């Protein structure tokens, strides 16, 4: 395939190349002619000559390329025939129902769907190019058995064989949360074959995206939330949003297909939303005071998933790198640490507890940042139509708002996932934590008793001073009048 493409490209490039040489000669001749002040006819003659020369050369080259191409085609066809012959030999047995007993006592099917396989892109690849173990030794028999611990282990092992041809996709996958989880030994995290049937691969364009597969296999709750959302409904009914040319998003539009990342970390989600909703800032600016700040610290779903449970989410932020601080590989039980910090946060500064407990390098410039988030991934997908979005400012900007909030502590795990733990609500009104969370301030939502008392005093003075002064004057005058009498 690669050889053919390369040849094809060369052949296509040759005439262009020759024309380019001719053009250079032509322009060179013209310039020379102008410089030497020779008659224009001479230059023209030279140019015609050059063109003719170039034409002859091109014809000769084209003849050679055609011959080479023909030969290459023959070679590829021969090779393909050979591969298919070998594969058919494998399929003689493996197209039938066959199983293998695994070490875990379970049976694994060895059956390959013959027609689908031969018709697929993988049909042109030799079986043993992926099943290398078979290629290296004789076909397993009673004497040469290949022991396989489990079907999962077999899939993980064979995952590497995809890399050879699908290097770019494999690299993307390697940077994903899915890959990180596989490396961690997570039994459910997907390998290539979890989404793509290796014996009957189909182009992603043929995927029935609306069915939610393959994502739904693991993320069913989220898929259900999505289908009920404005995005899901638009996609399922007519596929477009408000008759525009833009298709409503499916999973991969936001999460990508191979480089899957957790969107809820940092600014990723907002950037993703804005990628389609380009005029978001402008639209919010039209009515929302401090729109920029709101877009910075309030996650889209907080207002656009009106029934979602919200939380005041605290996370450590690496100011030097400009990204949320992620835990490193092999860090001591994150879960326990976080839970302890979350529960202790009620009386102290989560940032300090976090630092001392977790031992964050003091040299790193870290701060505690806060955002309004929805409580769960499911909630984040329950995006409603714009008309249902929360527009009552009071839902956040009301006195005692901080005390009513759910509070979560969040960290990015080494594999790039977001992990949150519920913390004590008291942390938001804790004096010790005041400095750490000072970047988050909801106007009208942060009561301060001292200021309330001062206001009452001021109001009292505003009333008492005039009344007092007036009354005092009246009393003095009356007293003086009595004295005069």
């Amino acid at each position, binding site marked *: 395939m690669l050889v053919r493409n390369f040849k094809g490209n060369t052949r296509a490039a040759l005439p262009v190349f020759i024309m380019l040489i001719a053009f250079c000669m032509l322009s060179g001749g013209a310039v020379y002619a102008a410089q030497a002040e020779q008659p224009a006819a001479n230059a023209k003659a030279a140019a015609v000559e050059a063109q003719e020369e170039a034409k002859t050369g091109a014809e000769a080259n084209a003849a050679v390329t055609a011959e080479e191409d023909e030969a290459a085609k023959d070679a590829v066809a021969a090779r393909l025939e050979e591969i298919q012959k070998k594969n058919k030999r494998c399929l003689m047995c493996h197209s039938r129902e066959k199983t293998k007993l695994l070490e875990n006592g379970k049976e694994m099917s060895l059956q390959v769907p013959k027609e689908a396989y031969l018709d697929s892109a993988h049909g042109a690849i030799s079986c043993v190019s992926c099943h290398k173990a078979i290629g290296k030794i004789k076909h397993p028999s009673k004497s040469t058995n290949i022991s396989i611990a489990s079907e999962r282990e077999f899939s993980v092992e064979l995952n590497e064989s995809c890399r050879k041809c699908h290097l770019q996709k494999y690299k993307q996958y390697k940077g994903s949360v899915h890959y990180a989880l596989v490396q961690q030994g997570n039994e459910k995290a997907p390998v290539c074959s979890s989404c793509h049937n290796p014996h009957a691969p189909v182009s992603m364009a043929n995927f029935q995206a609306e069915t939610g597969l393959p994502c739904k296999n693991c993320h069913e709750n989220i898929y259900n939330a999505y289908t009920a959302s404005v995005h899901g409904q638009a996609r399922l009914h007519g596929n477009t949003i408000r008759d525009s040319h833009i298709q409503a998003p499916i999973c991969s539009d936001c999460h990508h297909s191979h480089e899957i990342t957790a969107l809820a970390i940092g600014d990723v989600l907002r950037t993703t939303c804005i990628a389609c909703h380009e005029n978001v800032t402008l639209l919010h600016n039209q009515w929302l*005071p401090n729109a*920029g700040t709101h877009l910075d610290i309030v996650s889209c779903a907080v207002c656009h998933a009106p029934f979602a449970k919200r939380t005041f989410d605290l996370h450590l932020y690496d100011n030097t790198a400009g990204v949320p601080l992620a835990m490193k590989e092999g860090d001591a039980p994150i879960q326990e640490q976080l839970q302890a910090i979350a529960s202790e946060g009620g009386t102290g500064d989560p940032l300090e507890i976090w630092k001392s407990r977790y031992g964050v390098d003091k040299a790193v410039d870290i701060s505690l940042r806060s955002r309004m988030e929805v409580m769960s991934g499911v909630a984040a997908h329950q995006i409603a139509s714009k008309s249902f979005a929360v527009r009552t400012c009071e839902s956040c900007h*009301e006195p005692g708002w901080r005390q009513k909030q759910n509070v979560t502590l969040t960290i990015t795990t080494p594999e790039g996932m977001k992990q949150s733990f519920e913390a004590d609500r008291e942390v938001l009104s804790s004096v010790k934590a005041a400095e750490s969370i000072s970047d988050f*301030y909801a106007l009208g939502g942060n009561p301060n008793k001292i*200021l309330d008392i001062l206001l009452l005093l*001021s109001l009292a003075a*505003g*009333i008492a001073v005039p009344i007092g002064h007036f009354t005092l004057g009246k009393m003095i005058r009356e007293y*003086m009048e009595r004295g005069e009498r």
Partner: protein
Amino acid sequence: MSSMPTEQTNPEAWLKTKDSELYINPLPVRIWHWLNALGFVALILTGTHIRYQDKFNLMTFETAVKTHNWVAFAVMANYLVWLGFYLFSDRITNYHPELNMKKFFDKAFAQIMYYSYGIFKGEKSPHKVVPYDKFNPMQSITYQIVMLLVVPIQFATGLMMWDVKRFEGVIAMLGGLEVVNTIHVLIYIFFVSFTMIHAYMGALGHTPVTHFREMFTGYEEEH
């Protein structure tokens, strides 16, 4: 001046004759003062609504914030009327008629004594209101602090909260949004009593309406 008609002797002549009166407040000052007064009341009401919106149900939070912002910009523009007028008018002497500290303190003390006692006995104010020296020392110092320090701080903190993102650097330098808001609220608290007491003291002129009339017409009867 005693030959001039008075309100009691000839009310009609008194109204028509300006000879007996002093032109204390030129038009720009009067425009500024009343717009500012309306603005302050609106800002205090909407501000109170923003801060204690669970206790009032006059308007939504959104309306309160938006009204507060618009009125604030009007008040800021109006402030320039005041500043411009006094910067380019010789009436600026109202704010510093004489740079003599001893005299200032003596006069200030006399003024305090007047308001706390003399006024009740029917004494005359120790300060005589005249066009280029209309403020008593207490007014002069208070208004200068208010107009050149307190009000600009209120404008600045208000602007910062109007567009937090634009001013995030300054806000961070000041110690965060909570600090900025607390300053803004403290000044608001000050203005609550200031406005009320200011209105009451306005009624402590020669007659209760003297100063109000002076602020509407510009003229004050010479006493």
